[in-house]
């Protein structure tokens, strides 16, 4: 009974797909009007979403008085805004380096630790496994504010107040969200693969490293890319832990620029926009390089959450 049904379905679906695309002879005009309206609305939304970013880039290349002149292209192009930014915010280069180091360490540590834990949940059989995994899921619900103050005190007592260590070191202890995601991928691997390795006398750690990790590389990249973005854009922790201007990350530095009267007070908005461009651009580049992974990550969290 099941087999013929399946064949019928698979024949039907593509047929419907093509027939709905071909314009019917009747109602031709109505269809093309609605098609034009559809395209117009789509274009309108596209502009709404992309234009602020174009405006940002262009404003960073305009001279001060021209920032609000409502022209798309800067004329002349004020490249000097970028070197001038360094004159007003001399630590900007250092902030960039700090951001790269912190988000790199954050992403690497959370990927490895979460993959280790996720494999533990996917592969081993142990008492209360599902209950413990339930706790992992439950922690995702907890607002960060609840643990924020004790975490601050822990890092402070360890001597890491006014240091970038608390910005990434917590990631060595895995993150519930990524454990949840990676576990799904590890569960998808055929168990025979591991049984064979075990016959060859492989250790569990080695099975994890040389079988599980290589086979789930795309999922690991999703985690890495997600955390890189999360860490790069974070403001709360830099605001909590960093006092010395030298230690700032880019978002913390950008906030200092917004707050400084020598830039926004004297309306040097072009410099503020130049700083915002440098803070944003690495993420845009990362997104274009890892687009597939971003989309996959968001889509899987949505459908499996």
């Amino acid at each position, binding site marked *: 009974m099941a087999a013929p049904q399946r064949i019928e379905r698979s024949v039907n679906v593509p047929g419907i*797909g093509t027939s709905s695309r071909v314009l019917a002879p009747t109602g031709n005009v109505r269809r093309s009007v609605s098609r034009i309206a559809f395209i117009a609305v789509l274009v309108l939304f596209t502009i709404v979403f992309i234009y602020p970013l174009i405006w940002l880039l262009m404003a960073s290349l305009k001279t001060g008085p021209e920032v609000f002149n409502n022209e798309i292209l800067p004329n002349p192009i004020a490249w000097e805004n970028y070197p001038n930014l360094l004159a007003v915010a001399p630590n900007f280069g250092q902030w960039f380096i700090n951001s790269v180091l912190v988000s790199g360490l954050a992403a690497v540590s959370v990927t490895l*630790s979460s993959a280790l834990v996720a494999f*533990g949940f996917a592969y*081993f059989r142990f008492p209360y496994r599902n209950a413990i995994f339930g706790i992992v899921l439950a922690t995702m619900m907890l607002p960060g504010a609840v643990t924020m103050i004790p975490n601050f005190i822990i890092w402070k007592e360890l001597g890491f107040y006014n240091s970038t260590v608390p910005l990434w070191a917590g990631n060595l202890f895995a993150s519930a969200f990524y454990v949840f995601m990676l576990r799904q991928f590890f569960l998808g691997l055929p168990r025979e693969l591991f049984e064979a390795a075990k016959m060859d*006398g492989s250790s569990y750690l080695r099975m994890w490293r040389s079988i599980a990790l290589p086979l789930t590389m795309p999922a690991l990249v999703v985690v890495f890319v997600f955390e890189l973005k999360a860490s790069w*854009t974070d403001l709360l922790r830099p605001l909590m832990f960093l006092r010395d201007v030298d230690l700032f990350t880019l978002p913390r530095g950008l906030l200092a620029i917004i707050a400084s009267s020598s830039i*926004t007070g004297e309306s040097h908005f072009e410099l503020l926009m130049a700083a915002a461009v440098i803070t944003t651009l690495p*993420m845009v580049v990362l997104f274009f390089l890892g687009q597939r992974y971003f989309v996959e990550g968001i889509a899987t969290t949505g459908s499996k959450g």
Partner: protein
Amino acid sequence: MTPSTGTTTRSQHWWSSRSDRQQVKWALIFLSPWIIGFLVFTLGPMVWSLYLSFTEYDPFRGNPQFIGAENYENLMADPRARLALSNTIYFTIFNVPGTVIIGLFLAIMLNRVGRAAGLFRTIFYLPNVTPAVAIGALFFLLLQGQGLINSTLRAIGINNPPFWLTDPEWVKPGVIIMALWTTGATVIILFAALKNVPADMYEAARIDGANAWAQFRNITVPFISGPLFFVIVINVIASLQIFAEVWAMFQGRPSAGPSAQRASLMYVPYLFQKGFQDFQMGYASAMAWILFVIVLTITLVQLWLSKRWVYYEGQ
């Protein structure tokens, strides 16, 4: 593939026994980062912050002093806390439906675009990779009196557009506009869900004479109700905890002025001010627990309501 003999003998010596105890031991080793993290950075801090919420505590001055429920009593009487909570609820009430409706609308559009959908999806998601502080900085300019938003409003005939950054009546709508710009993640989740709705369902409905609204109501919504529910829940949780964008535009920018800072004061920014500017960490812990109770209650209510409209395949 064959391991060196040395490794083999060592491995056999270590794990040739397949006893359950070995499994448990190795499970513990693999789980250890999470176990340590959970105890030290989640469970311990939860208990600790609950205790701190009954104390007066400045970590740079001395040890916590137990004061009973005083923080909670003060919190109930604190007009700024009430203001921060009502501002946050105002923001959430407009931001969540706005995000979900626009997100669903764009996802449905993407679903009809066909091959070019990837390009538009990329564009819609770009605001989401923009760091929150940069979004705050950008909208600080876009929402200025002579900024892009007001010039657009003037161009379409609105002669006296609002002062989004200074008029207390218009500060929150400005924040909502900024937040609605980052609808991209919602679009991607709903777009992925829409692709799973079988096309022949729509065909059958059309044959039965169902119009577009009836198709949307009776096919699209039930089929994507799981992801739709998920998107609503995460947007509510995120909206209740909005921080960086408003902080960059108002509380973290001294020139914003007290009336705009008050009109835009949200719950987590106020908690942050109490904890990390005034160093009243006992009070801030009490605020955190109230937030936790609010988030938990709202999520549980949503979960309960979802049983009436969310349809899970295979149930």
